[in-house]
């Protein structure tokens, strides 16, 4: 049997590599930061006059729109990161370093989970950088909230990373990734509670409301939102964990050597 120390070393190696790669890719960090900040500085600022948010949990007072949108943007950072690490998996696989990972003498579920944790660690670094800038800008949660949001970010980051991993096991080629951006990222983001609360969506229509409710990204955003304000949203936690289990299960299945998904994708000689 493989020794626990082996697992620990491998996990350390995989997370360490991801963080090192992240540090080396400054543009990636910058774009991860600029994207939500644009939404905060431009989009939210413009909407401020039009859209204040009435009192709704976990908020205790009437809040400006910028305050509402920050947890959703934190979720967006993780959504993009999850898709980007899956992009890097598709790319890695073509480059061969994914193969290097998969020939390691460890169970495949462990390797994929470790890879997922590594991506999540990077996404959390990005979220904290974003939250720090938002703080300076004046969107400030309770100080303790920045600690309690951490476990929520771990769960949501894993869930969104697992979604990306599942997609990467199903996408044939790199080119199709632009399609994923259009057909996965944008709908996931817009059909969620990231930009508007659920009751706003209900005013807009029942279908929209339904789609926003069942979107796992909504659940992740609400989980983050409540945790940032020192509260636990148990249903959101439950749904997020359930989605994580489903996506991860699908990804492990997709990367299972007996499945032949990889065979069809690599296409042999």
């Amino acid at each position: 049997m493989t020794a626990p120390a082996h697992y620990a070393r491998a996990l350390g190696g995989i997370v360490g590599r991801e963080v090192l790669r992240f540090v080396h890719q400054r543009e990636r960090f910058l774009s991860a930061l600029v994207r939500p900040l644009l939404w905060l500085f431009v989009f939210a600022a413009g909407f401020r006059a039009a859209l204040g948010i009435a009192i709704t949990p976990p908020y205790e007072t009437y809040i400006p729109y910028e305050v509402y949108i920050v947890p959703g943007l934190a979720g967006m950072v993780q959504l993009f990161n999850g898709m980007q690490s899956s992009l890097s998996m598709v790319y890695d696989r073509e480059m061969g370093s994914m193969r290097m990972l998969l020939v390691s003498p460890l169970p495949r579920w462990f390797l994929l989970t470790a890879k997922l944790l590594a991506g999540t660690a990077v996404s959390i670094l990005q979220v904290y950088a974003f939250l720090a800038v938002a703080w300076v800008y004046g969107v400030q949660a309770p100080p303790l909230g920045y600690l309690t949001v951490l476990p929520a970010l771990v769960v949501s980051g894993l869930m969104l990373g697992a979604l990306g991993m599942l997609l990467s096991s199903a996408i044939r080629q790199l080119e199709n990734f632009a399609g994923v951006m259009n057909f996965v990222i944008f709908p996931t983001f817009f059909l969620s509670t990231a930009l508007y609360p659920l009751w706003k969506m209900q005013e807009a229509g029942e279908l929209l409301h339904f789609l926003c409710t069942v979107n796992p990204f909504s659940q992740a955003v609400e989980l983050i939102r409540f945790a940032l304000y020192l509260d636990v949203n148990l249903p959101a936690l439950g749904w997020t964990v359930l989605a994580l289990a489903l996506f991860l299960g699908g990804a492990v299945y997709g990367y299972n050597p007996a499945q032949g998904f990889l065979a069809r994708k690599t296409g042999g000689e």
Partner: protein
Amino acid sequence: MAEPALSIEGLSYAYGRGTFALKDVSLAVGAGSFTALLGPNGAGKTTLFALITRLFETPGGTIRIGGIDLRREPARALGRMGVVFQQPTLDLDLTVRQNLLYFAALHGIPRRTAEARAQDSLERLGMAERIGETVRALNGGHRRRVELARALLHEPALLVLDEPTVGLDVPARRAIVEHVHALCRERGIAVLWATHLIDEIGEGDRVVVIHRGRVRAAGPVTEVNRATGADTLTESFTRLTAKEAA
């Protein structure tokens, strides 16, 4: 306990339905043997490598590494094998050291041991002074040497290489070929080396000729030549692969 380092029996594989990429392939590579897997492009070499490295697996046939069944105990089997893939697999932005230590971590090698082995295996390949450089700064031949050093970090009994000299210039190719031959002689490592380049195969090597997914001949170069009635391996190869060419 004279299990060959690699033994493959009755291996078949089909992409989709009907068309076999590999059909009933059997071969063995013993300790200290340099075995060339020789075949034209599209012969099934890459498929065979994907199966040996468990990128995917097949219900047809068995692969044993040092006697361990790859399907039943994949982790143990993979732990005894070093791999050099055809595509480059190094992180370009990381240093040589970081690349090697990452690999060592995947194999559960303690940090201190990993540092020492990295130094050692790079030295043997004349790359020790490059350890702190990023891979991007190295040329193709040097990158391949680093990959070779990496594949040896966990001291495998079997080394498999999939067309490892693709894209290298003549001196770099020769250096890699000679180094791997030396590994067989001096350290008793079993090597399976896939190639379509006959000049990479020495007189004393073993060869497995594969064509259209089937093994056409296997054995020491001299025996294969004798069996086909040819003077050189080039001639043997032409005869073995020409039969069904039309």
